[in-house]
């Protein structure tokens, strides 16, 4: 653990990522306290530029405070990014572990499914899933998890394949442990580092995917997210740049911070990358 922290903080990039991410999380958590009225309240004239009285980030097409929208948008992005990744990791670990531990036809079948998901255009499939389930927060999370779990499954399977023949697994088997217990208490803890690295990278891409869905109008209609802010301001872009530039910057900074953290985790957890 000490070693992990030393490597993680040895370069400035992961630290910068962590600080930015902490600020965004704080903003998301404090949004209802800071702006209790919610993001849908009209506060003034439409399309006021940033810096207009009381409007730090200007107002949007309907005269709503952009700063409030940005703070509330962070809640949706983080919520979707984290929960959909957790779901995907859950499915991926379960199926990847079974495939890697048992091998044989189960493994073959799972690898074919993974390959299938790599070959089909998953964003189009995601659009179909969300549209057919009706756009909502839960259909977004389920949809993203359903198209991203194969990435996790591949990594977990690989780890299990290389770990299942080791002495400590044989020892556990000789002790009479059941397979489920060996998988979860013996092998899985040793396979965790790469799972954490992949998971940290997936949060950022899930946030990007969510923003794309809500940009196309496939987000939850009752929630304001960064993607829907951009989608709703398309017609105003010509006269009010801030309506599209600011939410996009918010997405970019959040994803960048997450990728910086992921990079640091990769350095600290992947022995091959240690120098």
């Amino acid at each position, binding site marked *: 653990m000490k070693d992990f922290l030393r490597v993680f903080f040895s370069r400035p990039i992961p630290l910068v990522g962590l600080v930015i991410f902490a600020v965004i999380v704080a903003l998301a958590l404090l949004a209802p306290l800071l702006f209790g009225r919610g993001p849908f309240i009209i506060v003034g004239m439409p399309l006021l530029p940033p810096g207009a009285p009381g409007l730090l980030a200007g107002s949007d097409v309907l005269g709503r405070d952009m700063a409030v929208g940005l703070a509330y948008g962070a809640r949706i992005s983080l919520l979707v990014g984290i929960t959909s990744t957790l779901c995907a990791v859950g499915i991926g670990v379960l199926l990847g572990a079974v495939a890697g531990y048992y091998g044989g036809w189960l493994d073959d079948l799972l690898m074919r499914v993974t390959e*299938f998901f*790599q*070959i*089909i*255009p*998953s*964003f*189009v*499939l995601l*659009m*179909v*899933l969300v*549209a*057919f*389930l*009706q756009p909502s927060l839960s259909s977004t999370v389920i949809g993203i998890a359903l198209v991203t779990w194969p990435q996790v499954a591949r990594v977990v399977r690989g780890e299990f394949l290389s770990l299942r023949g080791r002495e400590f697994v044989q020892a556990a088997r000789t002790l009479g442990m059941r397979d489920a217990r060996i998988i979860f208490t013996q092998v899985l803890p040793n396979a965790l580092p790469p799972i954490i690295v992949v998971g940290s990278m997936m949060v*950022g891409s899930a946030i*990007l995917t969510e*923003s*794309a869905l809500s*940009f*196309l*109008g*496939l987000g939850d209609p009752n929630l304001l997210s960064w*993607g829907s802010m*951009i989608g709703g301001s*398309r017609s105003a*872009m*010509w006269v009010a*740049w801030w309506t*599209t*530039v600011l939410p*996009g910057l918010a*997405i*970019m*900074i959040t*994803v*960048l911070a997450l*990728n910086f953290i992921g990079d640091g985790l990769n350095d600290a957890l992947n022995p091959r990358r240690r120098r």
Partner: protein
Amino acid sequence: MNRLSYIGARLVKTVLITIAVVLLSFFLVRLAPGDTATVMAGQGGFADEAFMKSLRAEYGLDQPVLVQLWKYISAVAGGDLGNSFVRRQPVLDVILERLPNTLLLNAFALLVAVAGGVLMGMAAARRPGSTTDASMTVLSMIFYAMPQFWLGMMAMLVFSVWLGWLPPFGLETMGADYTGLARLGDIAVHMILPGVTLALYFMASYARLTRTAMIEVADQDFVKTARAKGIGEGQVARRHILRNALVPLITFAGLQSAILVGGSVLVENVFSWPGVGTLAYEAVTTRDNPLLLGIFIVTAVLVSLFNLVTDIAYSIADPRVEQGR
């Protein structure tokens, strides 16, 4: 294993993928609340029980699932993807009408991405760890963090709204009625912004891949031999290193094509490019489920065909893969 049986095995795989896509679609339809009959009745405004029953009989919805599945598979195999709810036209016809525009945009983007990425990768590989190399790593990190549709909007804001250099949307100038070469030029100018936006994301990956491959290949014995023979550094890089480093790009182009199609949906929408991507958006907003599903089937089959082509091309460029399996 010879080339013919390798290609045969890949063909079988492509057919299996297509079947899996159709099976998946059949079950996706069942995700939506209500069946075709309720949707159609809902559009009609009013329907009594008897009318619903006759609708269900007409569309075979009262038959066992396996019978419905069999009918569905044979319909899709015959090119019947159902009818668009909104347009009242066969789904396949609607898609095929838009498909050429999407293929054009994607081919252009792929070309730009490969050409730009290879050049950037070569520049970075010349001296690993140099400023060029480091700044490219930073740039690609930033590109990966941007929503692609937003990158397109920013490009439009700068190059169309502020600078006024390029047309912001559409396939060609409305009402200009250019013909022949003038029309081609007009379309080319309209294609620059969406094409480069789509390409930029992939350019970073191609650059990274070329860089790694070039550094790897540069270390091998045949390159040392070439240098020992007294061949100039530039020619070693182009003739010996690059030619071998490019081979993995072929497979990569195949694997990335699925992501390219997803990006195309968004970029087409930003730039109002009249392709399958804007059609998908129209299908979403008008709740035209058969059309949306048809787009999924068609794009999935096209991507798997493209993967078949790149795999065959790879086996020609690097015959070792045929022995692999």
